[in-house]
């Protein structure tokens, strides 16, 4: 894993971050389903990127978004949690024996079924942390769960769509 091989990912994260800020900022389907598309940038980082740099990256990414969204700490907490569990879950959800560390866990590499089982629980976890921080003391727990579920679903659909549309060619990483 060299700096050079990380450049395309940095570019992708930058683009997704901008999309998140400019287009997905005030979008919430039925007031429930939020799109956290920028997480796609963290999701497809290859498995051999260690937890610590990944967490630091997620922390700073969440922090930048928080500053723009006026939600200090909320995206940060959720993204850090997301980054901590990502390598663990990637290892668990991969088939035994067929696990390749350097592989990029994107749709075209691991297929739809595996991508969904890999991404959905992580997105759901992100949602739970985020909405608990958001609704602390106000909303009920059921509200948190339903918002997290629908947000994870919506984000997953966006992530699949983006990968189908823009990732078609295998990138030379």
């Amino acid at each position, binding site marked *: 894993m060299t700096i050079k091989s990380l450049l395309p990912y940095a570019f992708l994260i930058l683009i997704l971050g901008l999309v998140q*800020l*400019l287009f997905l*900022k*005030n979008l*919430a389907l039925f*007031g429930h389903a*939020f799109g956290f598309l920028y997480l796609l940038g963290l999701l497809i980082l290859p498995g051999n990127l*260690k*937890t*610590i740099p990944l*967490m*630091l990256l997620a*922390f700073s990414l*969440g*922090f930048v978004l*928080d*500053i*723009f*969204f*006026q*939600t*200090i*700490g*909320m995206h*940060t*907490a959720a993204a*850090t*949690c997301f980054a*901590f569990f990502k390598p663990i879950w990637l290892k668990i959800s991969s088939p035994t024996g067929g696990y390749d560390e350097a592989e990029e866990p994107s749709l075209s590499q691991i297929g739809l079924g595996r991508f969904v089982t890999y991404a959905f629980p992580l997105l759901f976890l992100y949602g739970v942390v985020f909405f608990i*921080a*958001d*609704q*602390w003391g*106000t*909303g009920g727990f059921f509200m948190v769960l339903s918002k997290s579920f629908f947000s994870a679903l919506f984000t997953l659909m966006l992530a699949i769509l983006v990968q189908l549309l823009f990732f078609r060619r295998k990138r030379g990483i």
Partner: protein
Amino acid sequence: MGRILQFLYRVRAFLLFAFLEFLAIWMIVANNSPQGAAFFNSSNEAVGNALKKQADVVQFFSLAEANEALTAENAALLKQLMALQVAPDSMPLALDSLLEASYEFKGARVIGNSLRFSQNYLTLNKGSKQGIKPGMGVFNSQGAVGRIKSVSENRAVAFSLLNTSLLISSKIKTSDVFGSVQWDGGNTSEVNLLYVPRHVKANKGDSVVTSGFNAVFPEGILIGVISNVEVNKKDSNYLSITVKLSTDFSKLSYVYLVENTSFTELDSLYKQSELTNDY
């Protein structure tokens, strides 16, 4: 000792995780305490500029609507002005302090807005250089919008009415019964009117306006119209009243700011009598 260090080294990822989460939670708490210093927010210069660029593009598409609203308001103001204008043959009257204007108004543009969270904030394109101060009320031609939280040199951040920590003192216009308006974090077009006792007759369709007690808004700025009245399930001494907001928070572009110039006097009076006035 070596084994302890070895163990700590092995769980270093988890330790960092715990530390970062702690940091994030500290930020959430520090930012949400009412008097907490808001170091990192969109009143920051660089972030404010980026938000302004975005608002420039987005608001270009709603210019026609904004113009229409401004024209309508100008017309209404002109009408009032005509009614107030003294005919040239009358004597000028010295007004006493009772009628002295104690509110000052300013205008600003919304460059950042959110609806999705339970703590929503607005960012405005003016700050302390243009005379904006924390605590000023924010409203537009449709109705009340919020209250200024903090200001920097050229930007200001305001609590939106859609922020569960903001209470606005208000009253039902027809009966003059007062209560507090607070958002419950759910529907972005509805708020609750709290602390209205059960014996009060409140009807669907009554308008709810600011009471003028809270030293933020002058009396009579529209908040919304009552859409539902029922007895509070948790505390049957009170009614639970739902108010449909008159302001469309998804389309805010230009807002007015109001400052109560007699606020310091009021505040010191409250201090003297040992009352807390949480505006």
